[in-house]
């Protein structure tokens, strides 16, 4: 069974063709690196999968059923979560509030329902322990480090019991130690049967956690092969166009 199948996906913005004839299959628990230079179509592809906008052509199948996403909530509904590069956190709220934003736990008191702070803090604390992150659930995000913010954003996807997690440059702005922790986390997501699409510019990250690498150039998929049959040199050549396709 395939988790996600993209068939002949194309996307045009006015006269600009951002994607053409992209086919991609993701299996459950698979970690796929998505690479390409700026403007290669990575972001457009990710936004189509995440439901930010529909493709101009082609079909998207999730768990063998055709899906039509028009907004991110649609994609989240079937089990696709995104960790955005800017992490999409509200700085003025606590870690727990961010993790549970939009799906708060509530307690009924008569006709009113109130936030269940204790339960949300406890669950968030559990998620941070799973992620091995030294982050307090009741700390405000504004005072957190880059790695802690990343943990909050990832904890949010864990909460949703996602089947596919899209990570947009998760290691771009964090310390060396935190990079190792994020990569470790990706491996544990895989072991738990969760598929991950890792969008990254960092060759070492992709080669250390991904099973497969997909390279985009000028809106086309130019390579899609197991990581052990490729090399950083080949991928670099594919990204820059020194090598046409593989």
């Amino acid at each position: 069974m395939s988790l996600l199948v993209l068939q002949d996906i194309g996307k045009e913005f006015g006269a600009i063709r951002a994607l053409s004839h992209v086919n991609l299959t993701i299996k459950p628990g698979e970690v796929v690196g998505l690479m390409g230079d700026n403007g290669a179509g990575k972001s457009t592809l990710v936004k189509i999968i995440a439901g930010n906008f529909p493709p101009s052509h082609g079909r998207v199948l999730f768990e063998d059923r055709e899906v039509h996403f028009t907004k991110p909530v649609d994609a989240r509904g079937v089990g696709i979560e995104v960790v955005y590069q800017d992490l999409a956190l509200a700085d003025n709220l606590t870690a727990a509030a961010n993790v549970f934003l939009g799906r708060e736990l509530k307690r009924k008191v008569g006709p009113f329902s109130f936030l269940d702070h204790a339960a949300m803090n406890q669950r968030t604390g559990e998620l941070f322990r799973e992620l091995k992150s030294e982050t307090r659930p009741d700390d405000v995000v504004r005072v957190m480090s880059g790695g802690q913010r990343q943990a909050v954003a990832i904890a949010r996807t864990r909460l949703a019991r996602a089947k596919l997690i899209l990570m947009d440059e998760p290691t771009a702005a964090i310390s060396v130690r935190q990079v190792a922790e994020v990569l470790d986390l990706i491996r544990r997501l895989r072991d738990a049967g969760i598929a991950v699409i890792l969008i990254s510019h960092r060759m070492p990250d992709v080669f250390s956690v991904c099973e497969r690498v997909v390279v985009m150039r000028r809106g086309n998929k130019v390579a899609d092969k197991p990581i052990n049959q490729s090399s950083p040199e080949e991928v670099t050549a594919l990204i820059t166009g020194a090598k046409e396709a593989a």
Partner: protein
Amino acid sequence: MSDISQAPGAKPETTDFSNVGRTAWWRRGFFASQTAYVAAALIVIMIVMSLLSSAFLSPGNLANVAKNFSFVGIVTLGVTFVIVTGGIDLSVGSTMALAAITCAIVMQAVSGTAIDTISLVGMIVSLGAGLGVALLIGLVNGLLIARIGLSPFVTTLGMLSIVRGLAYAVTEGRGQAPTGPDVDLFYGLTDGNIAGIPVAVIYLLVLAAIMGVVLHHTAFGRHVFALGGNEKAAALTGVAVERVKVAVYILSALSAGFAGILMVGWLGSAPANLATGYELTIIAAAVIGGANLTGGVGGPAGAVIGALLIEVIRNGLVLAGINAYWQIVLVGGIIILAVLVDRMRTMRMTP
């Protein structure tokens, strides 16, 4: 399948936070907020004034201060909701007037008709009409801002003018007095006292308490803060951004309508120029109390303290026999001083 903590090679659980410092208690939470030091400033000012003027603590003067600041305070609560989302509502002063006028006119219209023969119905209908007009104004503001995406400043500035114009047009400039068989009850509800405390103060405190619970203990309140913190993130996580925005403008307008109706009881009439210019005092009160116009910060305590500070200073200048025009100058100075102190404080605390 969902438990990933037991993955092979997992390190021991991290629970000691040895690597993460925590800010000292007096540098976080309420103690580090603008609201806290404005509250401290308010207490100092009140002590100084009671020493300088024996009239300040007289029951008559205190009741006067309490009543005056309650009207502004109630609307400040509503406007604080809007400010926390990162918006602004300039139309509240006009809304106070039109709600008050509508209430008084409907009261006059139903008095003597069949509706009035049933006890209380006439008054309930008039109060409903006043608040209904306010709700409608808030709904229009909210829909224009949330659905169509107009700027809150410009939308509510236009609404300020439209609603004030309507107030003059409907009344042709004449004040409208409440009448009818329930008029005594109306005055009791709007201008009465309970155990010597003006009812307006009680309304303010009850509403502030409810607002505190709503902001900090309901999903709606959390979404209000999230909108002010990062509206895009709120939308991406599935917060109903449009609904929350429309709701805060409705709450703001309803608070204005309610305060306007209370003012009718206080004045005995609803003039078309009721609460002219109040929007600036109200926004000033919210900002002095610690609400941040860029959104994400604010609360009922700040709204009440800000409104009280402005009124205490105004009252102090009156007692000191200083020309009333200087009040306006001073209030402006305090607004800038309050945000200036906050700015210096946050600059010192940011690493």
